[in-house]
């Protein structure tokens, strides 16, 4: 019953069917906030999307990957800047989020790298991005596309 806040409004029938369905250990309590991305120039350049991934549940969750109809090769990347000021970017390791904690995908750190775009990213539009977790669960978020020079979700 520790999931009580999340079954508000469910009927007993739904509750029973949910309990008999395969249960995801944690990812159903993941909330994605402040998602945003920048518009692209055409489809040849990779895009990037940012967001905060909040684990509101009581189990540790592990973010393992991404899928989106927008890009053939979406991947969680991490930018690192070394002591000499040289920045590089590489696929990130699996991202573990403890209960109650958040992980920020933000400029200059973790980002959803959108390689091989299927369509240009057009300012004002949105696209669905699905986060996949090690428990088999998925969370899909609609990511707003802001201008190329956008600095954050509010700009």
């Amino acid at each position, binding site marked *: 019953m520790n999931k009580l806040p999340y079954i508000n409004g469910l009927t007993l029938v739904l509750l029973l069917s949910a309990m008999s369905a395969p249960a995801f250990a944690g990812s159903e309590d993941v909330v994605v906030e402040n998602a945003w991305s*920048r518009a692209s*120039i055409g489809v*040849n*350049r*990779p*895009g*990037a999307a940012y967001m905060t991934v909040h684990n509101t549940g009581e189990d540790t969750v592990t973010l393992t990957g991404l899928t989106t109809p927008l890009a*053939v*090769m979406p*991947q969680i*990347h991490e*930018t*690192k*800047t*070394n*002591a*000499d*000021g*040289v*920045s*590089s*970017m*590489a696929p990130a390791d699996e991202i573990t989020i403890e209960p109650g904690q958040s992980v920020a995908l933000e*400029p*200059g750190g973790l*980002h959803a*790298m*959108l*390689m*091989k775009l299927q369509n240009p990213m057009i300012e004002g539009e949105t696209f669905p991005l699905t986060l996949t977790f090690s428990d088999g669960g998925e969370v899909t978020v609609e990511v707003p596309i802001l*201008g*190329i*020079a*956008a*600095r954050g979700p509010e700009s």
Partner: protein
Amino acid sequence: MQRRHVVQYGAAGVGAVALMLGVGWWRADGPGAPKPAGQRPLPLSAMDFRLTDHEGNEVGPETLIGRPTMVFFGFTYCPDVCPTTLSDISGWLEDLGDEAAQMNVVFITVDPERDTVEAMAEYVGYFHPAIRGWTGPANQVARAAEGFRASYERVPAEGGDYTMNHTASVFLFDAKGELVTMIDYHEPREFAVPKIRRALKEDVEGVT
């Protein structure tokens, strides 16, 4: 105090190395580090390279002398660091308003293979109108980077593409072409804008 520090840091190369190592040693153990640290960019007057700006004009280091200058290396296929830095620079320029109106602001590509003059023109058009985009033959880009002591490296990416590792610091020069300071990536705006003001002010001092 801070300013004095930087001036002395320029005067003594050994001191510069020591300072950079002192600041950076504790995070110098990541992948890719360390490279020869502490190399200070040359004065613009000692650099030698020929590039083309995004409007097709021939440019070189001498183009920048006479006004304070801000330079950043990057590439237009860069999804994260470069648009972030260019939008940061745009924000700094907006904050400074008329103060920065006489400043050169240059984005030099480290990926001339993909960043043609046309590509640079389209890309810089999305940022502050003061920002100029410079590109050119690979050997001239290499000479420019050498002068600024910037480094870059082509890295294969999955799917046959490639990306570029590159120096992400912003270089600030006074109107005489002497390095004033650098703005490191991730440096908060409350530090960046005063640094730019310093480059602008040294211009005034240099003229008098």
